[in-house]
């Protein structure tokens, strides 16, 4: 049975969604439109002259092997960030949900990192892992493991994933905790009386009931990994060594704001926009089916 609310006034519903629509128009459609428009031009940095090139910027991009390769890097990075930040957050939320004494303090501490800006998160991790002066790099060295993310692509990727995921864990934690607390205790207690173990209760009752939250977080985390992580990359690796941590959004940032190549940068944001749209549609069509509301 589908629930339906009927408005008597024809205009009221539109009026109610108007503020949200306005925000979306001004902060999403307008800049997105600008990006699409600019992707057909090669402007000079100061905006003194522009040249129309049609699809030239896209041809230039896809003719470049390094750009094509950065799709794979982005995929690896996004999957790692999403999976690690969501699974750790869920684990922490399950643990925090069971804490009775001092739960407020635990929660506050776990939510704290969310207040840190991506670039600062990057610098914090860089301090710990600096091959020469970082404390963790030093400790790894003592254990006989050489840490040098300026030369080792795998280590560099691990470091940017850790810094990006660390920040996002707090956000995911908040939602998971709220989701856990909304699950009726009676269902879980009934299962417990039937003799179901903790993990059995978790996988058969809690996890399915959490699925709307998990799905929402999946969408949000993928978007975060795709769009919001250039600050971390910029401060830690600048895309290197070689191109091992050059993800698509970092290239948009560095070509546009460091290299002043606004045409290419605009074309790249259009590519990214299309990509994330496709991903989101796929998520809603195929994964949402498994979600129980």
């Amino acid at each position, binding site marked *: 049975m589908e629930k339906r609310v009927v408005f008597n006034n024809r205009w009221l519903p539109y009026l109610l969604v108007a503020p949200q629509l306005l925000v979306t128009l001004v902060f999403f459609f307008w800049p997105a439109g600008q990006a699409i428009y600019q992707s057909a031009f090669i402007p*000079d940095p100061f905006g*003194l002259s522009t040249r129309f090139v049609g699809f030239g910027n896209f041809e230039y991009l896809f003719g470049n092997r390094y750009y094509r390769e950065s799709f794979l890097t982005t995929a690896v990075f996004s999957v790692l960030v999403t999976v690690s930040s969501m699974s750790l957050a869920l684990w922490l939320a399950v643990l925090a949900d069971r804490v009775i004494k001092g739960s407020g303090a635990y929660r506050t501490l776990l939510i704290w990192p969310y207040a840190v800006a991506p670039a600062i998160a990057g610098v914090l991790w860089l301090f710990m892992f*600096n091959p*020469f002066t970082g404390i963790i790099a030093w400790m790894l060295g003592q254990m006989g493991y050489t840490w040098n993310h300026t*030369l080792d692509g795998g280590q560099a990727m691990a470091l940017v994933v850790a810094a990006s995921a660390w920040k996002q864990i707090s956000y995911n934690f908040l939602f998971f905790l709220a989701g856990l607390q909304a699950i009726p205790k009676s269902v879980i207690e009934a299962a417990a009386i039937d003799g179901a173990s903790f993990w059995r209760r978790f996988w058969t009752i809690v996890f399915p009931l959490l699925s709307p939250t998990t799905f929402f977080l999946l969408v949000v985390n993928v978007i975060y990994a795709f769009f919001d992580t250039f600050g971390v990359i910029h401060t830690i690796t*600048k895309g290197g060594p070689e*191109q091992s941590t050059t993800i698509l959004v970092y290239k948009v940032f560095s070509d546009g704001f460091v290299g*002043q190549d606004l045409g290419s940068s605009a074309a790249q944001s259009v590519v990214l926009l299309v990509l994330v749209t496709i991903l989101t549609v796929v998520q809603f069509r195929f994964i949402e089916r498994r979600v129980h509301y």
Partner: protein
Amino acid sequence: MKKTIAAGVVAALLSGVAPASAATQIDFWHAFTGRLAELLDEQVAKFNASQSEYTVVATAKGNYSEALNAGIAAFRAGQQPDILQVFEVGTATMMAAKGAVKPVYEVMKESGLPFDQSAYLAAVAGYYTTTDGQMLSLPYNSSTPVLYVNKDALKAAGLDPEMDLSTWEQVGTALDALKESGSKCPLTTAWQSWIQLENLSAYHNVPFASQENGFAGLDTELEFNGPVQTKHIETLGQWAKDGKFIYSGRRNEGGAPFRAGECALFTESSAGYAGVKKEATFDFAIRPLPYWSDVEGAPQNTIIGGASLWVMEGQTPEEYKGVAAFFNFLSSAEIQAKWHQDTGYLPITMAAYEATKASGFYDENPGTDIAIIQMTGKAPTPNSKGIRLGNFDQVRGVIDEELEGVWNGSKSAKDALDTAVTRGNELLRRFEQASR
């Protein structure tokens, strides 16, 4: 510390007093932080105190890339500052932006203040001058790479701390001994593209790019995959494999371990002097950048890095007069000599160099004149005047990426340089397209 506070108070008082006297405000956006920003603020405070017509307001806008970016964004919004500090890599971008910048020679001419272009060091001013000799931006902080030596580390390896390190062959011998004695970081470098490729090319009188390294036209192509450069990168790659050359990052990350005494040899800008002098607890020396003795004509001369001051278009004549007065002040021998001695940047005028020499500074601080001698020792050739390329920041990014492939052993030197040339040329063609 006390001095800093006092300077801060003076600066605050001055800027607080300024609006009351209705002086014309000159906005100056720069990219300095830390000690350099303090020294710059000191210069500005001195200028503001020296006259009452103009007040220069200096604002830090992040690093070089960020400052340039802020200037461009401000210009697009019609809010540009009067003076913008732009690093040498952004020179071609600024030159192509006719209508956004006002050439310095014009500003000086209109102001009626005395301005003698020949007073500036040719090797420095040439970088910022058109082919017909008109100065477009004012040289401000220019440096050139030199070799920093930790003498205690050499001694510990059983080497003579005064040993000759003027060629890479000699450096190689020293590295063997250092490695042998258990040094964890025999050699490291800052700014690999600038020092190990751009300056290497100029120093050995081989082209970095066609069209006189870009000075003669936008249709320039990269040429740094020649035999001299390939041999050098190959050798460094071998040293990296043997643990004699330690890669520390794309910028000057190697400074921290050198100053902490971990690295024995360090190629870095002459402007790294202030930091080394302040922090090093060991006996150090400055030496000229090494060269390959088997290359004919080497050593030629090294080229500069650093930044210059650009005047932005669209301000009032009154403000331009103030800019001219400020530039004259900055170029004065007294200010330049102090700047040179405090920071390790090159003096931009011959007079400042002479004044420093006369003061006995070079005798008290041996090695501080090496940068200037190395730059001006020989008359520059088309290969050693400098490098002026569009999208240069991105070209350097490409070079960084490819060199990292050599240092971690995944690519041969030849392969990496060839790829960097191909990829860099694409960026040059793109810039040519945008500026046509």
